[in-house]
């Protein structure tokens, strides 16, 4: 057993902590850009558990990380473009001011 294998549990635990922090950020903050940053944090936490388990399961886990990164990049590009469009419309990225669908 190489040193990396003994890190399986701690790496999964770190992944859990980072994911919870990402959720906390999404719930607590009202700034739309910080919200996106927290979503990236959650995606990174999931990537960490993929990489940790890839040690047991082969390179498939690492390939999932590439797919997650691709989706994250696409999501960031589209999401930030939406934020730009909203900012041009409302002059704010505060989520409290964006209540068009609240009715």
């Amino acid at each position, binding site marked *: *057993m190489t040193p990396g294998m003994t890190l399986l549990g701690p790496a999964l635990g*770190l992944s859990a902590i*980072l994911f919870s*922090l990402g959720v906390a950020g999404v719930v607590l903050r009202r700034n739309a850009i910080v919200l996106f940053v927290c979503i990236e944090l959650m995606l990174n936490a999931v*990537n960490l558990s993929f990489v940790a388990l*890839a040690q*047991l399961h082969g390179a498939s886990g690492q*390939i999932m990380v590439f797919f997650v990164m691709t989706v*994250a990049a696409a999501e960031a590009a589209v999401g930030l473009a939406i934020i730009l469009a909203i900012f041009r419309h409302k002059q704010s990225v505060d989520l409290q001011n964006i209540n068009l669908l609240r009715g």
Partner: protein
Amino acid sequence: MTQAVFYILAVSAVITALLCILSRSTISAVLWLTATMLALAAIYLLLNAEFVAAIQVLVYAGAVMVLFLFVVMLLNLSTVTTDLRGPATVAAAVVLVGLLGIQLAALWRYTPGRLAAEVSQSPALADPSALFVAGDVSRHDALTRGVVGAVAAPLFQTYLVPFEITSVLLLAAIVGAVVLAKRRI
């Protein structure tokens, strides 16, 4: 030694993530997240995923974070006092995140042996001994096929179709971003 390095990196990742979600200005939140990502890249090195670590630095800490910084710069936000939600939401969030964290923290106690045992007890879709071979698959693959080859071979054989589909996804994202960010929609 590896354990000590891992825990140093883990603590720095958690601290920078905390600063990221609590920092007042948007730009420092983005920069703290970049620090978290760099710590995670170093952890990937410890977990025998060298190529993923390189891609993490290049794509995530490089490209995606630069995109965020560009948008922050374009928006020219005034430094607001604070954008945390009210005390009721904060209390609810602490309870929610605490419960989630406790549930997820059960993962902490996983060891390779325990994982293999639990999978072999449940009705298995695949042979557990094939899934959880004795030893370190990442390290073994890297030694036999090289660091990049270990990732590239399954990516272009088993996962060829999903790989091609991601190119369509990226094209759609580019077109969508250009259309959305145009001055007049």
